[in-house]
């Protein structure tokens, strides 16, 4: 039994068909969300001055407006470019270095003090260091995203490779499998669930990194919109931008989750 840190770990119920959509839990949940939105709208309207707390509908209106603006899409393009490079490199390097460290106990031990340190460190404090080293351009932005995603992916991969069950190890040894073969046939598939979980969680972290990057670095992308609307107290627009960031995070996670399901379909339970 492991602790829950993310939503994916809570939701054990698999598959949702039409029937399960009508389950009381989902109906009540949907009703709770609707009630929350209605409450938000009513509260917003009740305020004399709702500059800090716009109504839900005014946010929706602002959102519709934003979606029609070229500037909005252009900002997202400028934000997603560094996100993409940082994300893809954190995934690739995280798995690669994780495999190397996981398969070589000595290397793992050598780097483990630093890993423990970085694991306990809030990644955001590294942002100023990145700025000092790389400025505020594409390289710096991608690096921030990379730093957020990398450790999750690497640690998860190490855990996956290092803790393949002793029974399975003994079995491969008893059959006298070659190392390369044992890696391809046993270690890699055995570690795959952990690696895929690492990729999913790392993607979530990379999205967080993207937002942090937008908030802390002088931004030309979505962060610029955030700063602009906050400075002008255009709160419906600000809420709408934050909403799109949240939606992007949810979509990224959903995509990774389906990828995970597809890759691990042999498990039959994810």
């Amino acid at each position, binding site marked *: *039994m492991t*602790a*829950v*840190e*993310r*939503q*994916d770990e*809570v*939701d054990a119920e698999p598959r949702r068909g039409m029937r399960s959509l009508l389950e*009381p*839990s989902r109906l*009540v*949940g*949907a009703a*709770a*969300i609707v009630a929350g939105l209605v409450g938000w709208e009513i509260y917003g309207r009740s305020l004399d001055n709702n500059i*800090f*707390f716009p109504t839900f509908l005014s946010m929706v209106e602002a959102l519709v407006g934003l979606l029609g603006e070229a500037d909005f899409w252009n900002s997202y393009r400028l934000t997603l470019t560094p996100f993409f490079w940082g994300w893809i490199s954190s995934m690739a390097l995280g798995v690669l270095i994780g495999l190397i460290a996981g398969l070589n106990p*000595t290397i793992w*031990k*050598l*780097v*483990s*003090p630093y890993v*423990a*340190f*970085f694991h*306990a*460190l*809030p*990644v*955001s*404090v*590294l*942002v*100023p*260091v*990145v700025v*000092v080293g*790389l400025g505020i351009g594409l390289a710096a932005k991608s690096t921030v995203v990379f730093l957020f995603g990398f450790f999750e992916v690497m640690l998860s991969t190490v855990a996956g490779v290092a803790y393949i069950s002793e029974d399975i190890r003994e079995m491969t040894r008893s059959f006298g499998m070659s190392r390369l073969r044992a890696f391809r046939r046993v270690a890699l598939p055995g570690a795959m669930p952990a690696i895929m979980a690492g990729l999913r969680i790392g993607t*979530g972290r990379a*999205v*967080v990194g*993207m*937002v*942090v990057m937008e*908030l*802390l670095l002088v931004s030309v992308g979505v962060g610029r919109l*955030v700063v602009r609307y*906050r400075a002008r*107290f255009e*709160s419906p627009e*600000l809420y709408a931008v*934050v909403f799109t*960031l*949240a939606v*992007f*995070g*949810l979509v990224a*996670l959903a995509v990774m989750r389906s990828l995970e399901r597809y890759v691990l379909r042999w498990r039959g339970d994810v």
Partner: protein
Amino acid sequence: MEMTDEPTVVLPEHAPEGDEEVVHRLSGLVAWLRKYQVQAIGLVLGAVVWEIAGRAGVSPAFPAISAVFREGVELWASQRFIDVLKNTATSIGIAFPPSLVVGVLLGLLMGLFRPFEWVCRPYINLALSLPLVAIIPIVLLIFGLSQTTIVVVIILYVLPVVMVNTFAGVRSADADLMQMAESFNAGRALTLKRIILPAARPLTLAGIRIGVGRAISGGIVAEQVVGVLGIGGLVQRLGGAFAVESLYAVIIFIGAVGVASLALVNRIEQRYQREGA
């Protein structure tokens, strides 16, 4: 009924007393060093590489580690540093305990009353899968460049994990034990006291451990965005001033506090766990 099968009792190990303890501690240290020698070598090796890179001037982002520590010794003792530290500690001190209490209570309610779970669940799911940092600009809009902003962000970071873990803990209560309680006609109160609460403890503690980490990281990132408060604000100012050595000194401090608090919470967690299982 006669006792015929040999009792296999696991006795708790007794701690050595007096002189023995000193010997025990020394040999413990030696054993520890032997056990972690590779890690120690790795630590030193990394520092050496860093020092060389720093002296060679590979990048302005890599000052020599000796310079970092020279700067650090001065900084860590300075009033300015202690002040920002106090500021951050206050924010966490204000936000964390109530988040913990409320989180555990709401988690228990979620675990015990299904309709309440159904209501909370979508919100918790959202809170755990959204990039929560994105909410900072809104909190900032509402509460301004103040400590309240930091406190609110920490609460938003901590509350859902504490809640969901306590909830999962309640639900982890063994079905056989529940059936046993039912077979003896145990009431709700007794079942709660003897079965559900003890069963929920490990995961609740795990939730608190995760909550500590999130309180630190959420508080600091909020301070960085606000820019003028606490240790996160200091990090931003040092970075802006290109005071790289001091910046690293602060980062090392934060990392060390992070490692230490995780170790501490882990210890507490293990102690409580041992009492049970």
